[in-house]
């Protein structure tokens, strides 16, 4: 479903991602893990077209380079941003409905069904449907961000560090929901700093470091691989001696 070749992302003089290749098949859950600053977020932003990049991005067979982010969303490539980017002064329900805007614009007016599905998945959001997004807790906001993304009926769901800043209990809840989505057949590309949780959920994984793919393979293998630990804690590597 997604094929990335030779991706490069730069911010002025700094290189965030270099020569990155990855692919995601339909129905797969792929984890993108690695230490902070490795370029994971930049990769996702580039996939959505929110930052300039070089290289080839093929989504469902078609080249995405040059397509505006709003159009990518309309084609089913949806991102849950690291900072959620909710509409704070609007209610939960309004945020969710706006998630389906791309479809609404194309004439789909029957959004009730999707709304009910999201509420079934996130009962907490159902309870707070008229509450302003900015007044909710971190975990609830994360749920809302995911729910909003689901309203767009994504074919490929991108998640940027869904566990960021959340207490372990909430993280468990959210990953539980991600497991349900996986069971329903949603294709997911998950960026996470929490390597263990990500690898338990995913089918395959890529370990990013300093903007490049350092390791890749089936999640089960990566879970056992001691080198993953090393990449996180810098034990191996060329060293700066």
């Amino acid at each position, binding site marked *: 479903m997604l094929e990335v070749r030779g991706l490069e992302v730069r911010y002025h003089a700094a290189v965030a991602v270099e020569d990155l290749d990855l692919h995601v098949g339909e129905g797969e859950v792929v984890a993108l893990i690695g230490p902070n600053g490795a370029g994971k977020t930049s990769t996702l932003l580039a996939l*959505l077209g*929110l930052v300039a990049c070089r290289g080839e991005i093929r989504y469902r067979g078609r080249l995405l380079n040059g397509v*505006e*982010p*709003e159009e990518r*969303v*309309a084609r089913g490539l*949806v*991102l849950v*941003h690291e900072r*959620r*980017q*909710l*509409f*704070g*002064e*609007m209610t939960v329900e*309004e945020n969710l*409905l*706006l*998630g389906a*805007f*791309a*479809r*609404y*614009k194309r004439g789909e007016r029957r959004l009730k069904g999707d709304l009910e599905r999201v509420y079934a998945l996130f009962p907490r959001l159902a309870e707070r449907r008229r509450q302003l997004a900015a007044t909710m807790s971190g975990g609830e906001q994360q749920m809302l961000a995911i729910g*909003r*993304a689901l309203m*767009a009926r994504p074919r490929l769901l991108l998640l940027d560090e869904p566990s960021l800043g959340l207490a372990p209990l909430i993280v468990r809840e959210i990953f539980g929901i991600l497991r349900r989505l996986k069971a329903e057949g949603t294709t997911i590309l998950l960026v996470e700093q929490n390597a263990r949780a990500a690898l338990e959920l995913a089918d395959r994984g890529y370990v990013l470091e300093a903007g490049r793919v350092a390791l890749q393979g089936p999640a089960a293998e990566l879970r056992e691989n001691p080198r993953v630990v090393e990449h996180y804690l810098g034990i191996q590597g060329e060293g700066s001696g």
Partner: protein
Amino acid sequence: MDPLIFGFLLSDGLISGALYALVALALVLVFAVTRVILIPMGEWVVFAPLTQAVLLEGRLPATVWLSALLLLVWAALDLRRGRTPLLLALAAALVVAAGYLGLAVPALAPLVAILVVLPLGPATFRLFFEPLPGATVLVYLILAVGLHFVYKGLGLAFFGPEQFGLPALLAGEVAVLGLPVPWQGIMLVLAAGLLMASLYLFFTRSLFGKALRAAAVNRIGARLSGISVREAGRVAFLLATGIGALAGVLVAPLSNASYEMGFLLGLKGFVAAIVAGLSSYPLAVAGGVLVGLLESFSSFFASAYKEAIVFALLLPVLAWRSVSSLELEEEE
């Protein structure tokens, strides 16, 4: 003070207040969605009644050609984007046709005038602001100032320096609490109220309206939800120009129209918008009424300085707003 005079000043202030409130609303709307402080708004507000006046004199106003030209340039820039250039060319033709219609049927002149001025807003956004998507508020401000010069100069070229008198849409006066108030003034206030109500409903009930708000509140979040921020900008400009043109047509019979008035009018609406922190719609309305009343009462006590007072008022407001603004803008 004589209660009759007080009444006059009050009604005068409220009527101008309605005008300034509308201009302020338009300015706040545009700023919220695009971060542009739309200085040329004043020119567009006054272009509409001036266009109407020229139509009533039996000539085709140059604004018709300007609008059509801008639309065609826009079409040329977007040549490869689907049906858009075709629709724009059609719109250009429509504007010219409307112009001729206005000549033929003078009763329709006010409506035609609004229609003719309407494309100026979104076209200006597309041609001058959209190509600089990430610029700071300051760059947009300087750009807006440059465009103000252009439109003001064009106003002089199109309409000359004279003042035009325009027939009232509703002639005559009515006695309100013993005070003669012109029907036209009441019409303006009512139209302002109606417009505000419609905007309110649009922004709170319609998903399109909410999408526009979303684009203003969180650009990235909006794009992630499939809301095109560029389109939102164009819609904002369109709405704002519409509000401005309507306001201009309604107020012109009360005080005549000349090309110069645009700037001062825009500035006063702008004072009201600043009171609103460029972000709150209710405060924009309140600010507009405040400016109108202040101007009206100052004109009684210190006629020559009434405008200076209005602007001096701006300084403490800006200071207050700056302190309470949590935004950190990068300085250009």
